[in-house]
């Protein structure tokens, strides 16, 4: 065969070389024909001899060789085959021959057929190894698990050596044999026939469709160098469910893991129209016939009764239930302990819920490895998250247990282990049957029952002892455990005649857990004799004849039982006197004694016996140096301190009473040890604001000496009443006040002083408001000298009402106030002085003025009333320069020469004075037309106008005729007279504005409004007084109009020029016109308010 290959190679090279050189298609065709020719020649040559030798093996031991017979060789022709294999061996065979496997290397094989001889070179590499077709021994199915089980024989005995085998298995489904799966399975040939098993679980229930299985193999012999090929596929075997005619759904009640996929099918002969998973429609997968399937992916946890899968046919429905859940979680918090060392209780938590209940619920098995015993958990539906427990009977002589708790459900299993020494894990039961019995008044026996066998261990028990109104006491007791479960202990150090409540709990040593507390057991201990005598004190009666003995009832701890009675006796050096028995509720006895010294003894008795006697001397040890002190407490008590006195050998006694009570006063007393130097006296009877007397006694040889007397308050309060005060004396400038003490009961504290307030005020108007607000008009006197009982208030005003207030205060606060109104007496001297001084001053001023006027009368006359006025000094004439200068429009008097041409002295006594003014008719005045031309209505009359007497105006000619100058003296007091009818002047004056007019043309009867209307005219028309006369308000008290303040009629109180009504005295002092013109009256002297 190899030769043929070589022969073929040579022409091939030639063809290749030619092809390289030839480029045309023709050459290609020619070459092809040539090649075909050569091949045909070779083929013809081969057909005439045996050719195509092939060898295969299926067991590596025998080669099965075959060749093609030469043309013309009939069936049954014999060949001689010779193999050169170290030795020359020839076989006469027919067409095929089985030869032993040749050793590795080339071997020459010669086949003679008649005259033709064919030679071949045979090598193991040219041999194909094709294993025999495997045969399936058995194919079975577990329908419940949808598992196929395959069984076959590897026939390994035919192979000379061990080899690896690869089995390939294919799964086909449905009648049309859809390949579902092809898997491999590796085994090893071991020289023996071996039956192999292989299982496969289908994702589809096997009932749903026919499943087919085929198998082939591939043997990988490492020493065989030839071609290793797969065997042929075995015959297919199938599994099908022999269904009856009933419709069924598969799988039935399957338990699967949450999240997995599952296929559910309905094997039916009816047409399925609908498939539901719960309430969800599912697409149908059609199988053989009418069978259908649905596939559920990633299924969620089922509810308790499972997930329903329903297939609906036309008139019926079929279904199954799938339970999707979880495998059991690892048991958590596994704990094993014992209550009684007889039985072990193991508890655990199941962990994650499995969503499986009922028969699919997790089952637990507790296995103990040392003993090999196990117990199973009897299934009971335990609510979720509740612990499970199992009881394991303890084994004798075994203390250490190795527990394995196995949890199992259809989806899997888990386990948890615990190694425990049960003697260290004892959690005793609750002690029961607690009983108490007397031993004596201070001890009892306590017994209880504790189930369990604790003989080998020690118990640690705790006894809780509760006493009424006391902190509970815990006593730990270690005791050896017993088998009979009964325990008994003695409890001592109890108080006699006391109700106790006992309860017990126990644990073991080493400690693991306490049991629960037992029920409480209450018990009253028996009585004992009183431990001490009663606390005793004595007081002499107020008449000093009887001695009253007081004692305090013993406390419960001291009485040790119910006190039935007391025995009181008094003894002296000579005799002992005993009183009759005093029954318990009474704690006082009175004995008539003389003033001799007696020792009083008091004994308390109960049903068991008498207490030791309490003794006290009847007489006090005198103390001459005794002072009363004060003390203030802390609200609920009062602290008393004293100096240490080594002479006091017994104790100190502080007794106290309400200070307002009569003697003998005793509220209570308190004894303190002799080494004490202070004590706090507390009592529920103490009230704030109540004064108490405290007496400190020191004891020497059963005799008491009063050391200190203290008055005090536990808390000071403000007085409840104000001091009662009266006015002892009143003068014009002082008041003497006296007050009384406040009673102690109402003082409610130590008096620290008084506050005295006073102010001016009437009873009805003055209210002493805001005493503490610091009003400046209130004067306060703080009287800290509490012995002071009077107060004189000085520097008061006479005949004035004063408001007096008095209040007392303590450290607790201010007491209420008490007020009183007092009027001081009148001060007559002051009044007289007040009248006389102004009168005197007025007289002096008048006299001085008169003297001055008299002595300076000439000067005054020259100054104010000259006989011939100096025109240069006339301000009226200066007016021309000052006012009209620079104003050509203003026509003023041009004073050339102002010589009075007529002076007439008039009598002033007549009601209508006949006065003739000196009339100066100036050139300007004689030309009224000129001025009227400019201002026809408001003509300006500018003239020097002495006072105009209307009667004189009626005869101007006479005036003009007279050439002598006259001086007119006008009584300034009567100047109103010529102005009686001012309204008639313009009409009756024939001269009108042409003649000489007085400078001031005052409309004495005109209203203020009229004057105001003419104001502008006045300013511009002629000479006017330099001051606004409207502002003058000079009132002459003698003037008939002086009382009419609204009148515009004025009078001049100062000297005035005869031709001017302006004051000629310059108003240096603004007061002067008023004062001089205002008049003076005596009443003004006393006027407080000048404006008034």
């Amino acid at each position, binding site marked *: 065969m190899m030769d043929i290959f070589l022969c073929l190679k040579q022409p091939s090279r030639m063809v290749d070389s030619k092809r390289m050189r030839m480029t045309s298609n023709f050459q290609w065709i020619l070459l092809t024909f040539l090649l075909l020719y050569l091949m045909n020649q070779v083929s013809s040559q081969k057909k005439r001899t045996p050719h195509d030798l092939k060898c295969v093996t299926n067991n590596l031991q025998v080669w099965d060789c075959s060749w093609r017979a030469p043309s013309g060789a009939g069936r049954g022709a014999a060949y001689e085959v010779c193999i050169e294999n170290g030795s020359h061996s020839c076989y006469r065979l027919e067409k095929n021959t089985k030869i032993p496997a040749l050793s590795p290397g080339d071997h020459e094989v010669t086949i003679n057929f008649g005259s033709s001889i064919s030679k071949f070179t045979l090598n193991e590499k040219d041999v194909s190894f094709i294993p025999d077709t495997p045969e399936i021994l058995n194919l079975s199915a577990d329908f419940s698990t949808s598992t196929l089980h395959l069984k076959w024989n590897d026939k390994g005995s035919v192979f000379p050596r061990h080899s690896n085998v690869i089995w390939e298995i294919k799964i086909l489904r449905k009648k049309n044999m859809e390949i579902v799966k092809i898997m491999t399975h590796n085994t090893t040939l071991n020289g023996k026939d071996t039956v192999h098993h292989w299982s496969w679980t289908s994702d589809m229930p096997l009932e749903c469709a026919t499943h087919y299985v085929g198998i082939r193999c591939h043997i990988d012999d490492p020493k065989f160098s030839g071609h290793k090929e797969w065997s042929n596929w075995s015959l297919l075997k199938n599994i099908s469910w022999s269904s009856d005619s009933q419709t069924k*759904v598969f799988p*039935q*009640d399957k338990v699967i893991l949450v999240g997995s996929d599952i296929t559910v099918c309905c094997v039916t002969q009816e047409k399925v129209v609908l498939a*539901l998973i*719960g*309430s969800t429609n599912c697409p149908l997968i059609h199988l053989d016939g009418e069978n259908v399937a649905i596939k559920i992916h990633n299924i969620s946890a*089922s*509810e*308790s*009764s*499972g*997930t*329903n*899968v*329903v297939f609906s046919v036309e008139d*019926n*429905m*079929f*279904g*199954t*239930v799938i339970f999707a859940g979880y495998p059991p979680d690892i048991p958590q918090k596994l704990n094993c302990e014992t209550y009684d060392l007889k039985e072990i209780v193991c508890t655990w938590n199941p962990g994650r819920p499995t969503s499986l*209940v*009922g*028969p699919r619920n997790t089952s637990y098995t507790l296995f103990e490895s040392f003993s090999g015993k196990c117990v199973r958990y009897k299934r009971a*539906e335990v*609510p979720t998250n509740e612990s499970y427990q199992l009881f394991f009977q303890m084994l004798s002589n075994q203390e250490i247990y190795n527990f394995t708790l196995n949890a199992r459900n259809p989806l899997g299993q888990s386990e948890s282990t615990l190694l425990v020494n049960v003697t260290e894990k004892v959690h005793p039961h609750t002690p029961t049957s607690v009983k108490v019995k007397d031993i004596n008044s201070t001890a009892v026996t306590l017994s209880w029952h504790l189930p369990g066998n604790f003989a080998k261990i020690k118990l640690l028990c705790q006894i809780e002892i509760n006493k009424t109104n006391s902190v509970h006491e815990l006593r730990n007791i270690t005791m050896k455990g017993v088998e009979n479960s009964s325990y008994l202990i003695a409890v001592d150090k109890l108080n006699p005649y006391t109700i106790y409540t006992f309860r017990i709990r126990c644990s073991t040593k080493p400690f693991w857990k306490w049991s629960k507390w037992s029920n409480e057991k209450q018990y009253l201990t028996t009585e004992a004799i009183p431990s001490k005598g009663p606390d005793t004190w004595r007081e002499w009666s107020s008449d000093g004849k009887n001695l009253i003995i007081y004692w305090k009832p013993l406390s419960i701890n001291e009485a040790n039982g119910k006190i039935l009675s007391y025995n009181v006796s008094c003894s002296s050096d000579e005799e002992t006197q005993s009183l009759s028995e005093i029954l318990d509720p009474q704690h006082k006895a009175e004995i008539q004694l003389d003033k001799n010294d007696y020792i009083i003894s008091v004994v308390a008795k109960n049903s068991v016996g008498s207490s030791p006697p309490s003794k006290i001397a009847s007489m006090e040890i005198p103390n001459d140096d005794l002072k009363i002190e004060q003390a203030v407490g802390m609200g609920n008590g009062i602290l008393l301190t004293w100096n240490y006195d080594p002479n006091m050998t017994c104790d100190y006694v502080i007794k106290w009473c309400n200070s307002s009570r009569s003697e003998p006063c005793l509220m209570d007393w308190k004894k303190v040890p002799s080494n004490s130097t202070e004590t706090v006296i507390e009592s529920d009877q103490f009230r704030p604001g109540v004064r108490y007397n405290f007496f400190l006694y020191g004891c020497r040889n059963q005799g008491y000496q009063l050391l200190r007397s203290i008055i005090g308050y536990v808390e000071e309060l403000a007085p409840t009443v104000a001091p009662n005060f009266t006015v002892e004396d009143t003068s014009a400038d002082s008041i003497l006040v006296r007050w009384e003490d406040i009673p102690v009961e109402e003082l409610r504290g130590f008096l620290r002083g008084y506050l005295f307030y006073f102010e001016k005020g009437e009873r009805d108007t003055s209210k002493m408001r805001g005493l503490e607000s610091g009003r400046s008009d209130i004067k306060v006197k703080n009287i800290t000298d509490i012995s002071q009982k009077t107060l004189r208030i000085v520097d008061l005003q006479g005949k004035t009402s004063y408001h007096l207030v008095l209040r007392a205060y303590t450290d607790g606060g201010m007491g209420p106030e008490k007020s009183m109104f007092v009027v001081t007496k009148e001060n007559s001297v002051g009044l007289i002085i007040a009248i006389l001084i102004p009168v005197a001053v007025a007289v002096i001023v008048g006299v001085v003025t008169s003297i001055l006027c008299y002595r300076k009368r000439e000067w005054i006359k020259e100054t104010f009333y000259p006989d011939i006025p100096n025109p240069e000094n006339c301000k009226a004439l200066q007016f021309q320069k000052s006012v009209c200068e620079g104003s050509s429009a203003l026509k003023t008097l041009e004073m050339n020469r102002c010589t009075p041409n007529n002076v007439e002295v008039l009598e002033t006594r007549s009601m209508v004075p006949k006065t003739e003014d000196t009339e100066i008719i100036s050139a300007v005045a004689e030309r009224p037309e000129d001025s009227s031309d400019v201002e026809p209505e408001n003509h300006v009359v500018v003239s020097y106008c002495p006072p105009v007497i209307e009667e004189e105006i009626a005869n101007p000619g006479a005036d003009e005729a007279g050439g002598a100058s006259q001086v007119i003296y006008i009584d300034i007091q009567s100047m109103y007279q010529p102005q009686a009818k001012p309204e008639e002047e313009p009409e009756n004056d024939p001269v009108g504005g042409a003649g000489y007019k007085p400078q001031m043309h005052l409309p004495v009867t005109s209203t203020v409004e009229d004057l105001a209307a003419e104001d502008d005219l006045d300013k511009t028309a002629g000479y006017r007084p330099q001051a606004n006369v409207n502002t003058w308000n000079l009132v002459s008290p003698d003037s008939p109009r002086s009382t009419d303040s609204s009148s515009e009629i004025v009078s001049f109180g100062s000297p005035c020029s005869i031709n001017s009504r302006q004051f000629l005295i310059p108003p240096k002092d603004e007061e002067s016109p008023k004062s001089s013109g205002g008049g003076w009256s005596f009443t003004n002297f006393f006027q407080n308010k000048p404006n008034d």
Partner: protein
Amino acid sequence: MSRREGSLDPQADSSVSPLPHLEAKIQQTHSLARLLTKYAEQLLQEYVQHQGDPFGLPGFSPPRPPVAGLSAPAPGHAGLPVPERLRLDAAALAVLPPLLDVVRRRQAELNPRAARLLRRLEDAARQARALGAAVEAVLGALGAETGGPRAEPATAAAAAIAAAATGGVFPAKVLGLRVCSLYLEWVSRTEADLGQLAPGGPA
């Protein structure tokens, strides 16, 4: 009337005409049947709730598998004479308790935490038994021949249904539903039949 079934006035048995007593008995039994009808409706509702979807979905009509020994009231039931109807009622009520017990046991596995459902099933079995006895008593009082205690059919039915219920969970659910439905049907049927006898009812 036997003392066992109870009497409001025991002394009236011998001194008073039996007719008012019969009426009272019928009235009591009718009231019991009416009460049990309400309970049976609640039981059916509760049962459906615990079976999961599609049970309880509107339009869901599960198959009505036959129950051995117990059939639904026949359509011609109303045409029968009243005593005959009551006899059939009593017979059905006698079969129902063991069936309800089987259903309760199966539900105890499926829904162990559905305490109310389990209690209702347990009560239903007891109440069916009591109602059956009461109907028997009425029949006796009426002078009609009673079927007497028939334990065999009941036991056979229970065995049959127990076998059926173990076949699979789904069939068991359906069977339980069927039993509950039959219970309701028979109790309401009994109520109707007793209503025929009760005062004021159609004669």
